[in-house]
């Protein structure tokens, strides 16, 4: 005997409770008489509620016990077998958004897949089971596993093919796991192309069509030293229509346009944006085709990022450092506090300012080998071979970590305290040739790029749903709100460095970072695109509908039927009603 809900057996506690109540219950069996005066004025033994009496098999007792048993039956759901024999079909529903393309007859592929799936359901018996897997970067079950057909049919109607491009591999692995749990499960993959990476015993039903298409596969807005421009990549295949790409502002005014030239293949278009005060631009391909989702998108103007550097012009290495920094085009030299302060110009650095100090120590001159800290962004891709390094420190200062060292001498060290960072470069420029080495400008380029990573703002302003994003909050800010395309806000809290890492698998749309929950104080905006060349290319699509015939039955998890729900409950209600009627009769109130 297996109990669906063993806690329901606690209902059996009602039985001793009922018996105790009946043992101590005052039972006055009513009798209508005409001779009450003959029983005399004296009181016989009055029945007492605190005296235990002999248990009498009254109707109410039996009915109450039956009601308690029926209720326990209902709650605990006893059954003999946990599994039952039924046909089990696992349907993998390819949920790529490109299933929203129309075929040559104007029918949506996703609708054809749904209809075919419903046809398969109709060939099954009512006790057969369905498991629906929605494919995606993270596949998910549309219902529980092995649900009745009615539930699966409802879930199928609600299913939407709205996932960005992903591999079906994860969904197939999920189906394999589910199939192994069931003895005999038949797996069907519904897609717009024939899926070849499935076992031979599985069935692949495809409903797509190799149609010509034009679509935007990448769109970005650049804002750097070369000015503002929108970069587009357009995919075209067998599309002979004369199409243009239009870029409009929020008032639908065309701010840039370009004619598409090639009929096949990928085109890269860069359109300069000359108008100012445009934050979001809408990109649209003229003319329509069978797949509309890739014909338009939006891009957002990213803020230009510059590293403000306060450089001590009296230092010996001034000209070498300035030349190296200027080559990055991402640096602005300032007199006041900035992102980087070089050579002890700030005695009390403001929060978030990094300090680079050029320090001459009395260590020996070294020519290598140089041991850099693995993966450190400052020393990434740097090769110091051939450098004569003098002015080194014999050991790294207290509370500082060595980033680069040669033998026992420390060449570069750093100290991190919350958002502040102090980097020490131990060098004697008069004796060293580092400033003439190719690693010198690269060292400062790495420093700028590294600092850029910690300037307030986003890592990406245009990304696909499979990319992660990184937010650096402004100084003195601990948290921010992420407003989803649906308008729902989510509170985000930064780590000690003021950084928030956004997860991947964000749904396509426009996201806003706001300083308040209501979304009135917008700070930054970024866009998650649904664009992907693989979503716009229908080359491998085909229609291959074969008849699905499933005969094998296997073990599936038992589901409590409606009768098994209703029967004990009805029995309990009837017994409770009977107990009430019996009680009323016993008390004489029913007459």
């Amino acid at each position, binding site marked *: 005997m297996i109990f669906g809900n063993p806690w329901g057996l606690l209902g059996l506690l009602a039985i001793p409770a009922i018996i105790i109540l009946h043992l101590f219950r005052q039972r*006055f*069996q009513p009798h209508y*008489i005409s*001779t*009450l*005066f*003959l*029983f005399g004025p004296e009181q*016989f033994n*009055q029945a007492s509620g605190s005296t235990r009496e002999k248990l009498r098999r009254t109707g109410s007792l039996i009915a109450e016990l039956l009601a308690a048993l029926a209720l326990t039956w209902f709650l605990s759901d006893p059954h003999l077998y946990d599994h039952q024999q039924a046909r089990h079909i696992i349907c993998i529903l390819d949920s790529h958004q490109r299933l929203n393309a129309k075929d040559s007859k104007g029918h949506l592929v996703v609708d054809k897949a749904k209809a075919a799936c419903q046809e398969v359901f109709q060939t099954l018996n009512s006790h057969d089971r369905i498991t629906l897997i929605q494919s995606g970067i993270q596949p998910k079950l549309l219902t529980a596993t092995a649900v009745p057909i009615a539930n699966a049919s409802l879930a199928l109607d609600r299913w939407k093919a709205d996932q960005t491009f992903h591999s079906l591999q994860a969904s197939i692995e999920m189906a394999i796991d589910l199939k192994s749990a069931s003895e005999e499960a038949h797996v069907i993959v519904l897609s717009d192309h024939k899926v070849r990476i499935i076992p031979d015993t599985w069935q692949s039903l495809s409903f797509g069509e190799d149609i010509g298409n034009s679509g935007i596969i990448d769109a970005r807005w650049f804002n750097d030293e070369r000015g503002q421009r929108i970069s587009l990549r357009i995919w075209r295949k067998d599309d002979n229509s004369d199409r243009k790409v239009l870029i409009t502002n929020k008032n639908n005014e065309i701010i840039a346009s370009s004619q598409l030239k090639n009929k096949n293949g990928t085109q890269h278009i860069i359109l300069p944006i000359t108008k100012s005060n445009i934050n979001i631009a809408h990109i649209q391909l003229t003319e329509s085709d069978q797949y509309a989702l890739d014909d338009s998108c939006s891009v957002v103007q990213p803020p230009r990022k510059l590293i403000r550097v306060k450089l001590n012009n009296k230092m010996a290495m001034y000209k070498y450092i300035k030349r190296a920094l200027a080559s990055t085009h991402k640096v602005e030299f300032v007199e006041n506090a900035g992102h980087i302060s070089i050579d002890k110009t700030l005695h009390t650095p403001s929060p978030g300012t990094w300090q680079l100090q050029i320090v001459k120590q009395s260590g020996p001159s070294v020519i290598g080998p140089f041991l850099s800290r693995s993966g450190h962004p400052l020393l990434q891709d740097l090769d110091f071979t051939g450098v004569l390094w003098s002015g080194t420190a014999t050991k790294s200062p207290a509370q500082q970590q060595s980033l680069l060292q040669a033998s026992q001498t420390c060449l570069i060290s750093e100290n991190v305290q919350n958002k502040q960072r102090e980097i020490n470069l131990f060098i004697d420029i008069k004796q060293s040739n580092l400033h003439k080495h190719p690693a010198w400008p690269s060292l400062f380029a790495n420093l700028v790029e590294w600092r850029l990573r910690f300037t307030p703002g986003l890592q990406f302003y245009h990304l696909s749903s499979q990319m992660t994003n990184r937010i650096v909050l402004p100084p003195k800010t601990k948290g921010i709100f992420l407003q989803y395309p649906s308008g729902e806000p989510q509170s985000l809290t930064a780590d000690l460095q003021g950084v928030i890492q956004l997860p991947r698998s964000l749904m396509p749309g426009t996201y806003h970072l706001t300083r308040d929950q209501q979304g009135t104080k917008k700070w930054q905006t970024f866009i998650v695109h649904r664009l992907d060349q693989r979503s716009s290319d229908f080359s491998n699509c085909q229609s291959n509908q074969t008849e699905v015939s499933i005969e094998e039955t296997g073990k599936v998890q038992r589901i409590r039927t409606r009768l098994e729900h209703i029967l004990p409950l009805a029995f309990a209600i009837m017994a409770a009603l009977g107990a009430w009627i019996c009680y009323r009769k016993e008390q004489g109130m029913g007459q």
Partner: protein
Amino acid sequence: MPAWDEARVHAATKQLRLASDPRRIRHGHGLRMGQGPGSSLEFHDYRQYVMGDDLRMIDWGVYARSDQLVLRRHRQEISPRIEVILDASASMRLDEKKWSLAAGICALFLELAIHDGAQPILWICQDQAKRCTVKHWHSDLHQAQANGNLGLRCQLNNLHPGSERIIISDGLYPDAGNQFIRRIGAGSGRISFIQVLLESERNPNYNGHVRLLDVEGGERNLLLDEQALAEYRSRFARLQAAWQQSLNGRGAGLIHCDAELDLSASIRDLLKAGIVTPGAGS
């Protein structure tokens, strides 16, 4: 409304007669021979003529033979007056059989009285006594409701003096006996008390925890055991003895009728008690 066995009552009237006590009936001119002298054709006795006697009654043949004036007297023709008093308290309807039997016995006596040429009167005693004449007794009895609280304890005025009174009741009153019989027995003829009782009233068989609900009011929760039931039976016996004692010397006395049995069994009880006799057609 009581539903008695009217066919059985009708058949019984042809087989039975009221056993009237001629010594106690002095009223009217009827179909039955009285105890005293009267004006019927049947000879009664002779007596000496006294001044003032009707000369037409002198037996001139005796005078011729004995030279004495002798008055020839004839038997009196009488009509018995019957008053049937039916207890319509709620206790009479404790069981439908009890009330039907009581109504059946009542109808039987009324039919017998009418058959004997009497002018019976029916008294239905609820909380007030209702007097029903010979013309309407049948419908009145049919419409009678046993729901009174007083029953025989209600005021019974205008009882006919010297009438024969038949009381049909269960006799279950705390103050039964002398008081009631004294009240209705004054100036009455024969009194017959027909007691209709259920077996459960004579000998209750329930025990344990019971709630006793009196149909005439009152309730009590009791634990009944053998001792309590023995006490009940003792009290019941004393009640019956009180009735018996008060009816002593007043006629047929206390006649028991079992409500669980039918009218035929009750008729046998009545025959046994001598309140009715087998008629000419029996």
